[in-house]
């Protein structure tokens, strides 16, 4: 019965349990990215019950745990550390989840509007802008880079980068990344309100397409979709080799999807049982890193704040890039297409589509928004590669 005594004597642990319960509430009732937030929140609960032996032990660069066998880890620290140190700390699960993301991604909308992919680049600006503030607040470069990557609005990318650069911040960064992705229906309208005029919001992309039709139709979409991930892999591998584990697996997942029937078994596994299993163990063990001692400090608050700023700057960056483009082009683009460049697929696109419809009920932006939205996934994975190779 000492567990109860322990709890009463440690308000920090009680606070962690409360945070776990609040995240469960957000995941279940508010449907904030429930696939990740529910396991993370439950992992927090498991990790913070005194005596449960389910909290992840932090490890520095030279800690003994890195040289222990699986059996030694399991015996000494329990199964949660076994899972964490064999699947997360090794960097295994994020690329595997990315394979599943690829197996669920359709590059079709981007291929039909390739030009819009550039706004998926512009909307990564939040990642790098936030570096300065983070450094000013005392984070070191690796920590600042991990904080910045929240602005990429992509969960697996944020987790992969943080594992490589600042694993002790994994919990708060994962929470911030997934929470703000879930809050995209709030954040995008907020930024849009301050940056886009009503006239711009009414720019109708379909009408623009009719006025200035594209010259090159896609005659064989299936072939293009099969070759595209291979081509993209080669481009990324040559330019940013350090993002190969992440982007390579994403594109492999996409390739086995697009090939169709003959690799359907692999596609089903990648997007189904493999991805779901990886999600459960990633969520639980990322949650289990958040013990009172590792989570309750000013860094966490700064990460929550910095993550929000990174999101906001990324969205603004995408919007401004469209505005600059519109200064020079005749065929105008709705700035909402820039706002979706940060990624947070497909929620951001849906939000942009709804905003567009509010101002013009015939202005269906979804397909266009998806183009920059998917490009934003590649954009942040490339940004992660740059950060890892320069800072790591």
């Amino acid at each position, binding site marked *: 019965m000492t567990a109860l005594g322990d709890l009463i004597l440690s308000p920090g642990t009680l606070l962690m349990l409360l945070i776990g319960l609040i995240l469960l509430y957000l995941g279940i009732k508010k449907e904030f990215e429930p696939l990740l937030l529910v396991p993370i929140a439950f992992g927090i609960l498991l990790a913070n019950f005194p005596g449960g032996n389910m909290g992840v032990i932090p490890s520095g660069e030279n800690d003994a745990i890195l040289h222990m066998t699986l059996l030694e880890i399991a015996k000494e620290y329990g199964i949660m550390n076994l899972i964490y140190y064999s699947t997360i700390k090794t960097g295994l699960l994020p690329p595997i989840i990315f394979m599943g993301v690829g197996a669920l991604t359709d590059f079709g909308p981007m291929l039909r509007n390739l030009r819009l*992919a550039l706004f998926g680049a512009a909307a990564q600006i939040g990642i*790098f802008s936030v570096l300065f503030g983070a450094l000013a607040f005392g984070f070191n470069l690796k920590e600042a880079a991990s904080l910045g990557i929240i602005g990429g609005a992509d969960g697996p990318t944020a987790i992969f980068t943080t594992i490589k650069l600042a694993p002790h911040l994994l919990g708060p960064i994962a929470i911030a990344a997934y929470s703000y992705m879930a809050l995209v229906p709030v954040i995008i309208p907020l930024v849009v309100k301050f940056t886009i005029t009503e006239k711009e919001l009414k720019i109708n992309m379909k009408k623009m397409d009719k006025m200035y039709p594209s010259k090159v139709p896609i005659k*064989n979409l299936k072939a293009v979709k099969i*070759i595209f991930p291979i081509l993209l892999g080669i481009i990324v591998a040559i330019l940013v080799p350090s993002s190969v584990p992440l982007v390579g697996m994403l594109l492999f997942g996409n390739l086995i999807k697009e090939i169709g*029937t003959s690799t359907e078994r692999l596609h089903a596994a990648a997007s189904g049982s493999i991805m779901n299993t990886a999600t459960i163990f990633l969520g639980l063990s990322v949650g289990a890193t958040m013990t009172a001692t590792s989570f309750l400090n000013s860094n966490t608050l700064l990460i929550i704040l910095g993550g929000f700023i990174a999101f906001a700057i990324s969205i603004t960056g995408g919007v401004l890039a469209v505005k600059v483009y519109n200064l020079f082009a005749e065929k105008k683009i709705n700035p909402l297409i820039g706002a979706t460049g940060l990624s947070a697929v497909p929620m951001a696109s849906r939000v942009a589509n709804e905003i567009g419809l509010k101002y013009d009920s015939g202005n269906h932006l979804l397909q266009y928004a998806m183009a920059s939205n998917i490009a934003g996934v590649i954009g942040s994975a490339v940004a992660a590669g740059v950060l890892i190779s320069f800072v790591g």
Partner: protein
Amino acid sequence: MEGVFGTALMLLLVGMITVFFVLFMVVILGKLLIRLVNAFHKEAPTHKKDSLATINQALPPNKLAAIVTTVEVVTQGKGNIKSIDKID
């Protein structure tokens, strides 16, 4: 401390240039790919129709349509009818 801000500025420049360059290459090579594939494009692959035709011989078309639709609905488009055999 000044040094890290310099590094951050360098990262901002290198990072954004790389991201833009990669996605710029995606646009350029993507367009090139579409043109190339269009150039080689002759006949559309008609696997699906073939198999439907094969099935067609064994089943009246309305039943076939019902089954195909059901499968597509039930499996959210993931399902794939390869063959329909009578079981006696």
